[in-house]
């Protein structure tokens, strides 16, 4: 068995496979189906200050090798997260990464400072990349200025490892990543969903109520991998790879491209065991290749 443990900006993981925000709820549902203890970390659904009802349905639709979603950050809000969901997650001893989404700089501050007091939360992931909300979200993550604003505010409010989750809907991802770094990010995670759209030609109606939505799943894997590689090449911060990872082979591509960890998102819907199988498959690969430690694989693309 190879060594899968990883330390990212002080965040200790027994393995570098996490579940992605918004695709795993707060773990309650999946706990019936998989052993949460086996996961490297659990990234929560985005937490907002106040509870959010989310967007009107329809919210999801399948596309070729992918899906569109426009959930609109439906969640119970900060208070209920701490009172109800966090105690549940705490039982499993798997590091919890709280994903936070503010509409304003101030909300981000509040989320960060409040959650930093929770012992069970081991890191924060700042969602400046949600395409499905009116305020905040991608508005921040698609400009260097917006990125700086949010990241500085969160940095001032927390001592925890600070992960900034980037949107792929930009001309130059490295510019945003650099800005995040300079503003205090410890880790860059990417990608959030790609803006997309689908229409029902029979009814001529948009498949998603808000028309434009976020594309995830295998379809976007090449885009995600490219951006992870670009960011890993251009800045000296650990990178978490997200986007279309269905299995160990996909995950390995991200490590080779420079990721220090990966997150499994849409794949959880397709196969509830996807995260566990990915961990097993990485192990098998490393053993087969005689690689003793996954850290020896990171950023080893043979050009």
């Amino acid at each position: 068995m190879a060594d899968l443990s990883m330390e990212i900006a002080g965040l200790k993981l027994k393995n570098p496979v996490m579940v992605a925000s918004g695709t795993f709820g707060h773990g309650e549902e999946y706990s019936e189906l998989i052993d949460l203890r086996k996961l490297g970390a659990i990234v929560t659904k985005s937490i907002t200050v106040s509870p959010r009802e989310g967007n009107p349905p329809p919210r999801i639709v399948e596309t070729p090798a992918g899906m569109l979603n426009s959930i609109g950050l439906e969640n119970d809000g900060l208070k209920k997260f701490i009172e109800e969901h966090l105690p549940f997650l705490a039982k499993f001893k798997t590091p919890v990464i709280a994903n936070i989404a503010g509409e304003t700089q101030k909300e981000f501050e509040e989320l960060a400072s409040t959650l930093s007091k929770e012992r069970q939360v081991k890191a924060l992931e700042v969602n400046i990349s949600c395409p499905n909300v009116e305020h905040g979200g991608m508005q921040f993550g698609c400009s260097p200025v917006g990125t700086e604003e949010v990241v500085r505010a969160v940095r001032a409010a927390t001592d925890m490892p600070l992960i900034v989750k980037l949107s792929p809907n930009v001309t130059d991802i490295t510019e945003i990543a650099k800005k995040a770094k300079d503003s205090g990010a410890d880790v860059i995670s990417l990608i959030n969903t790609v803006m997309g759209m689908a229409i029902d030609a029979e009814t001529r109606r948009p498949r998603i109520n808000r028309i434009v939505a976020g594309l995830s799943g295998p379809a976007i894997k090449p885009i995600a991998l490219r951006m992870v590689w670009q960011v890993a090449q251009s800045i000296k911060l650990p990178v978490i790879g997200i986007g279309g990872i269905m299995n160990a082979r996909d995950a390995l591509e991200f490590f080779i491209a420079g990721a220090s960890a990966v997150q499994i998102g849409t794949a959880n819907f397709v196969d509830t065991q996807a995260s566990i199988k990915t961990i097993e498959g990485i192990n098998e690969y490393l053993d087969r290749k005689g690689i003793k430690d996954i850290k020896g694989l990171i950023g080893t693309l043979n050009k």
Partner: protein
Amino acid sequence: MHSDLKYGKMNLMIQEKARIVEHQQIAPNYYKLTLLSHYISSNTLPGQFIEIRVCDFTVCPLLRRPFSIHGTNKDKKTIEILYEVVGLGTEVLTKHQIGQELDILGPLGNGFTIKKKGKIAILVSGGMGVAPLKALAEHIKAPARYVFMGCKKMDQVVCEKDFSKLGFEVQVATENGSAGKKGLVTDILNGFIDSAQPSELNEINIYACGPKAMLKAVSEIAQQKKLNCQISMEAYMACGIGACKGCAVKTTKGMKMVCKDGPVFPAQEIIWPI
């Protein structure tokens, strides 16, 4: 006091490979699929569903597809699915043959609440809505039992015998009049209600499943006449277990998830149009 049989989520879900033991076309575009599942066959409540990965070698189709449990056989350890081919996923499903395995997730959702109060049970189905209603029918003990089935045309009238055997009176409406009454299933329902004694109305429990437009119409009838009515909703689904918040439906109690909070809802809770 009568205590209703509240079929909430009291069984755990599992993901497993289930072998196909039967798979046949029962009407144009309608198929019946029987799967071997020790666990689900003996842990299912009427109205619950499973999610099937319709093809495991490709990511297109990607998401699992939800199907109501149409029947269970505890002795044979099997569950039955009745499905209509409407798109890629169901098309691909037809290609699977006896002996092959399908990756399934279930049982999912909350079933119907079987009302002890009320002497008259009316099942209202539209098209494939018949799928969960047959499973439900087996549990209904009300002295007067009716199924009103709405279908596009004669071909699509299925399961009549199953209901008859269970002591249900079956009334059919088809849009083109090729079987039963010409018209909509709500015509039958309205007719029934109009000719009912006022005292009988209190005894009616409606259980409905079908296309949205039909469910809406049934709900409106029920609400007007203040009849007890449960409807099983459909929504596009990803996770099927309440984690993704994709299958939302607006209710008087806020957004609910069809997969986890439903698929069965009290009719008056749904805010139309959804």
